C-alpha cells in the first residue's frame, strides 16, 4: 500500500499532539499555543491533500488494520481506511478547520483563556479527524466521544456564565442519550458479525459477506438485522446531528464562542452524524434478494430528516438572536442531509454536507464578525444598516446567504439542494419528503432574507446610535469594546471569510449534473458521465422558483420598508402573535422535556439521596453500633471476669505465701522447737508401729 495509507493516522495525531503540548503550556504563552494548533492543522491539511490524491487514483477502500486488544481467543482490531468518502471529508475538515483557527486568533485576541481555547480546538480537530479515518466502529466511537467531550468543553468555555455551563451540560447529556443507541448497535453488530472493522479484506462488517448475512436474518417485527443495527447507530447520529427529538442542545450551544459555533456546530461535528450514516450506508441499504423497496432503516432516516428540516425552518423564522437563526438553520439543513442520504445515497447527502460546511461556516464567521463589530450585540432587532459600516462582511455574508437559500445556478448550495430535491422526487416510497423539502427550501430562503434585511439593510438601530437606547446587553465582547461605531473586523478575520465565500461559490460546480464528478468519485466510478435523467431540468427549474419566491417574500415583508425601532414587532408577530410565540419557543419542546424527563431525573436523584442518607447510612450506623456494643461487652468481660479471676488467684497465692512466710520467724529457737516436736512425733510413730 502507498505510504499515505499507512500514515493517514498522522492527520488526527498531529492536532492531538498539539493539544497535548498546549495543555502543558502556561496561560500566557498564547502565540505558541495558537501557532502549534495552526501549524498542526496546516500539516494535516497537506497530508489530507496527499490522501485525496491517493484516493483519486485508487477509489477502492485501502485499509491499514492492527489488532489492539486480545481477550481469550478473540481479538479486537482497530485501523484506518482511505477511500473517497474519507478523502473528501478530510480535505473539508482540515481546510475549514485551518481557516477557523486563523479566524480565532483574531476573534479571541482579548480573551484571557486564549491558550486553553486553542488546546481544546486542536483536541477537537484531532477527534473529528479520527472519526473520519476510522476503519473500526470502535475507534470511530472512541473518537466520537472525544468530539463530544471537546464540544462540551468548548460550549462551556466561559464556564463562569451559568447559561454557558448549563448549555454545555445539556449538549453532552443529549448526545449521550443518542450514544446509548450507538453503543447497543455496536455491541449487537459485534455479536452478529464478529468484527467491528468496516473493511478487512472481505471479512469486514460492511463487506459483502457480513452484510448479506445481516440482510437476510430478521429480528423483531420482521426487521432485518442490518436495518435494526443501522437504526441503533442512527440514534447516535440523531444526537450528534441534532435531529428531532434530540436537537434541543444545538440552539443552546450558541453560548460558546462564535468560532466554536462555526467549526463544531455548523461544519464538522454535527456533520459527523451524517458522515456516520454515509459510512455505514452499505449496512443500512442492504436488503434481501427479493426485496426492492428501500430498507426500513433508510426510510426512518428520510422521515426523521424531513421532520427535522421542516421543524428547523419554521422555528428559524421566529428567532431574534443572529446565531440562533443560524443554529436552527443548521438543524434544518442537517435534516436535508439526512433526506439526501435516505433517498439518494451517500453521494447526495455528502455533497450537501460539504457545501453546507463551507457556507455555514462562512455565515457563522460572518455573524461573529458582525457581533465583534457591534461590540457584542447579538439581537438582530438592535442592528441594521451594517452594510455601510462593514462592507466586506456584508459581501461575504450575502454570498453565504445566497448559497444557503439555493439561489439558482451560481452557488454551491443550489446544486447540492437540487440533487436532494431530485432524488426525493424520484423516491419510490412516498412524495411527501419532496414536498416537505420544498417547503423547507422556501422557508430557508425566506428567513435568511429576513435576517439579512434586519442586519445589513435599513437604518442603524444600535443602542447609543439608533433612535431608542436600551440597556447594554451582556454578551460576548462588551468587555473590550466600548459602545462605539460598528467597525469592520481586522484582516485576520475577514480573510477567511473571503476564502470561504469563494468556495461557497465554486464548490457547486463539482457536482452539477453536467459534470457529476463528486457523485461519481464517491460512488467509485472512474467515468464521469453527464446525467441525462428525465425530470432533471424540471427539478432545477422548480428549485430555482422556490428559492427566488422565498427571497422575494422576505424582501417584501422586511426589505421594502426599513424597520424603524428595536421594539417594533415583527411583521409576522403582528399578524399571528400566538403562532409566532409558539415558533419562537421552538414548539415548547424544551419546556416539555424539562417537565418530564428532567423532572423524573431530579426525582430519581432525590430518591437515591434519601436512600443513601437514611437507609445505607442507617445500616452502616447500626453495624457500627453493633461493633461498639460488642467491644463494650468484650471490655466488660475482660475487666470483671478475666481480671477478677486472675486477681483472686494471685491474691490467694500471695496470701498462701504470706502464711507460709509466717513460719519463718527468723528465730532459731522456734526452729528447734519444731525439730523437737518432730522428734516426738517420729518416736511415737515408731513405737506404735512396733507395738502393733
Amino acid at each position: 500500500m502507498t505510504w499515505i495509507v499507512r500514515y493517514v493516522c498522522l492527520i488526527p495525531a498531529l492536532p492531538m499532539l498539539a493539544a497535548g503540548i498546549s495543555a502543558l503550556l502556561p496561560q500566557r504563552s498564547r502565540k505558541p499555543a495558537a501557532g502549534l494548533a495552526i501549524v498542526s492543522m496546516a500539516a494535516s491539511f497537506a497530508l489530507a491533500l496527499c490522501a485525496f490524491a491517493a484516493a483519486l487514483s485508487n477509489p477502492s477502500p485501502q485499509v491499514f488494520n492492527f489488532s489492539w486488544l486480545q481477550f481469550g481467543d478473540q481479538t479486537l482490531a482497530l485501523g484506518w481506511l482511505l477511500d473517497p468518502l474519507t478523502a473528501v471529508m478530510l480535505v473539508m475538515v482540515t481546510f475549514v478547520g485551518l481557516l477557523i483557527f486563523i479566524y480565532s486568533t483574531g476573534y479571541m485576541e482579548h480573551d484571557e483563556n486564549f491558550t486553553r481555547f486553542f488546546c481544546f480546538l486542536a483536541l477537537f480537530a484531532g477527534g473529528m479527524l479520527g472519526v473520519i479515518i476510522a476503519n473500526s466502529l470502535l475507534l470511530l466511537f472512541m473518537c466520537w466521544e472525544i468530539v463530544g467531550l471537546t464540544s462540551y468543553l468548548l460550549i462551556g468555555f466561559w464556564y463562569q456564565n451559568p447559561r454557558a455551563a448549563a448549555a454545555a451540560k445539556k449538549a453532552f447529556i443529549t448526545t449521550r442519550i443518542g450514544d446509548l443507541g450507538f453503543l447497543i448497535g455496536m455491541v449487537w453488530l459485534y455479536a452478529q458479525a464478529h468484527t467491528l472493522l468496516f473493511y478487512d479484506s472481505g471479512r469486514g462488517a460492511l463487506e459483502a459477506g457480513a452484510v448479506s448475512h445481516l440482510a437476510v436474518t430478521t429480528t423483531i417485527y420482521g426487521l432485518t438485522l442490518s436495518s435494526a443495527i443501522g437504526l441503533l447507530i442512527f440514534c447516535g447520529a440523531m444526537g450528534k446531528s441534532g435531529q428531532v427529538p434530540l436537537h434541543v442542545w444545538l440552539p443552546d450551544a450558541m453560548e460558546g464562542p462564535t468560532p466554536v459555533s462555526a467549526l463544531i456546530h455548523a461544519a464538522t461535528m454535527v456533520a459527523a452524524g451524517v458522515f456516520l450514516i454515509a459510512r455505514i450506508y452499505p449496512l443500512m441499504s442492504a436488503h434481501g434478494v427479493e426485496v426492492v423497496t428501500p430498507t426500513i432503516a433508510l426510510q426512518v432516516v428520510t422521515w426523521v430528516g424531513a421532520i427535522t428540516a421542516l421543524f428547523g425552518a419554521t422555528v428559524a423564522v421566529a428567532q431574534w438572536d443572529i446565531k440562533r437563526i443560524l443554529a436552527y438553520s443548521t438543524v434544518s439543513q442537517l435534516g436535508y442531509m439526512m433526506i439526501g442520504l435516505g433517498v439518494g445515497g451517500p453521494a447526495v447527502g455528502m455533497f450537501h454536507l460539504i457545501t453546507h460546511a463551507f457556507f455555514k461556516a462562512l455565515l457563522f464567521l460572518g455573524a461573529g464578525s458582525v457581533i465583534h463589530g457591534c461590540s457584542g450585540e447579538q439581537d438582530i432587532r438592535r442592528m441594521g444598516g451594517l452594510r455601510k459600516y462593514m462592507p466586506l462582511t456584508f459581501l461575504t455574508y450575502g454570498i453565504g446567504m445566497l448559497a444557503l437559500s439555493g439561489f439558482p445556478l451560481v452557488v454551491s448550495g443550489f446544486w447540492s439542494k437540487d440533487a436532494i430535491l431530485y432524488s426525493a422526487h424520484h423516491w419510490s416510497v412516498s412524495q411527501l419528503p419532496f414536498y416537505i423539502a420544498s417547503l423547507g427550501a422556501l422557508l430557508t430562503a425566506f428567513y435568511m432574507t429576513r435576517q439579512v434585511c434586519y442586519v445589513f439593510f435599513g437604518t442603524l438601530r444600535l443602542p447609543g446610535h439608533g433612535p431608542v437606547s436600551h440597556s447594554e446587553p451582556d454578551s460576548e465582547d462588551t468587555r473590550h469594546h466600548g459602545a462605539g461605531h460598528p467597525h469592520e473586523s481586522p484582516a485576520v478575520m475577514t480573510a477567511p471569510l473571503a476564502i470561504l465565500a469563494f468556495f461557497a461559490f465554486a464548490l457547486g460546480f463539482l457536482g452539477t449534473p453536467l459534470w457529476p464528478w463528486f457523485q461519481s468519485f464517491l460512488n467509485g466510478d472512474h467515468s464521469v458521465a453527464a446525467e441525462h435523467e428525465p425530470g432533471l431540468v424540471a427539478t432545477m427549474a422548480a428549485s430555482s422558483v422556490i428559492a427566488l419566491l422565498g427571497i422575494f417574500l422576505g424582501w417584501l415583508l422586511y426589505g421594502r420598508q426599513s424597520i424603524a425601532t428595536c421594539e417594533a414587532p415583527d411583521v409576522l408577530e403582528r399578524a399571528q402573535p400566538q403562532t409566532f410565540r409558539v415558533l419562537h419557543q421552538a414548539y415548547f419542546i424544551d419546556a416539555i422535556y424539562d417537565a418530564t424527563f428532567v423532572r423524573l431525573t431530579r426525582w430519581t436523584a432525590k430518591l437515591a439521596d434519601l436512600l443513601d442518607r437514611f437507609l445505607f447510612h442507617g445500616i452502616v450506623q447500626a453495624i457500627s453500633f453493633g461493633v461498639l456494643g460488642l467491644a463494650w461487652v468484650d471490655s466488660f468481660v475482660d475487666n470483671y471476669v478475666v481480671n477478677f479471676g486472675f486477681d483472686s488467684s494471685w491474691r490467694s497465692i500471695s496470701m498462701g505465701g504470706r502464711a507460709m512466710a509466717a513460719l519463718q520467724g527468723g528465730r532459731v529457737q522456734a526452729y528447734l522447737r519444731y525439730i523437737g516436736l518432730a522428734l516426738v512425733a517420729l518416736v511415737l510413730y515408731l513405737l506404735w508401729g512396733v507395738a502393733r
Partner: protein
Amino acid sequence: MTGLQAYLLLSSLLFAIGLAGALTRRNAILVLIGIELMLNAANINFIAFWHYGPATTYITGVMFAIFSISVAAAEAAVGLAIIVAAYRHSHTIDLDSMNSLKG
C-alpha cells in the same frame, strides 16, 4: 527397773533438760551449752549400751563416745566463735532480737 533402763532414763532426762535450756534461754551461749548437754546425754547412752551390751571386748561404744566428744569440742569452738563474731556485729547475743532472717 534394770540398770540399763536407769542409765537410759537418766540420759533422757539430761537430754530433755538440755533441750529445755536450748529452747528457752535468751543467751545464745547458753543455748550452745544446752546443745553440749544433749550431746553428753547421747554419750551416756553409748557407754551404757556398751557396758550392758553383749561383750565389752567390742569397744564400738567407747570409740563412738570418743569421736563424739571430739566433734562436740570442735563444734563448740566454732559455734562460740560465731557468737563472738555476731556480738561484734550487733553488740548483743540476745536470740530474741536476732530475727533478721524472718520470711
